[in-house]
């Protein structure tokens, strides 16, 4: 080992600042962690979605309540976040299924498919969001 070479501090701990500002995830990493985060969010939000499905199917009054409720801006925003979470989880999931089949495993195509997932899920969110509004 060359003497005088700059010695990096070791061990390197993954602090929150390191995660946020020092480590730059590759795009595939972003797709992966967002897949996990969106999955956790969907798990936690299912109770809310079931509540709305329940009310909307229970009676005409319940249906009108949900329609009115979904018209409220914060509710719409929350639903839009879930629409994104579903779309991202869907698109990233299909990418992972294809990777399992050894499709697009090389660096260039894996990167391209990461971009495709991020863009497609945002585009789908805009599409469904526009229809919901």
């Amino acid at each position, binding site marked *: 080992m060359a003497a005088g070479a700059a010695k990096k501090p070791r061990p390197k701990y993954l602090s929150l600042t390191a995660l946020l500002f020092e480590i730059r995830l590759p795009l595939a990493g972003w797709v992966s962690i967002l897949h996990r985060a969106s999955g956790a969010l969907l*798990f936690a939000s299912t109770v809310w979605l079931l509540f709305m499905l329940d009310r909307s199917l*229970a009676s005409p009054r319940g249906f009108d309540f949900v329609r009115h409720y979904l018209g409220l801006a914060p509710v719409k925003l929350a639903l839009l976040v879930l629409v994104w979470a579903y779309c991202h989880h869907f698109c990233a999931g299909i990418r992972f299924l294809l990777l399992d089949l050894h499709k697009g495993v090389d660096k260039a195509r894996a990167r391209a498919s990461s971009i495709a997932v991020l863009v497609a899920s945002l585009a789908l969110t805009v599409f469904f969001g526009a229809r919901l509004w």
Partner: protein
Amino acid sequence: MVTRTVVGAHYGLRDWLAQRITAVVMAVFSAIIVIVLMLGQPISYAVWRDFFAQGWMRVATLLFAASVAWHMWVGVRDILMDYVKPTGVRLSAQVLVLLVIAGYLGWTVQILWR
């Protein structure tokens, strides 16, 4: 002294496969529902109720819900295994998640066959 940790054994491949099969079921169902709802008439209460009253729709939704339940269990369990290290806390959290998922599934059945 041999220290054993609660990690289970031999369920890795089954869960990995279940995660993917349920994913395909959910993806197909999602695509069909989105297309059917977008091509159909504007949604009023009657349209909405009749849509979920059809036999095929009830069974398909139940299959979807069962897939969601299984998929959720594997996914959330993976997250807990990654981040929650103390065995007791992790086991408690996993039991809680299972109960929540069972509740989701029971509620779905109740909504579909009321």
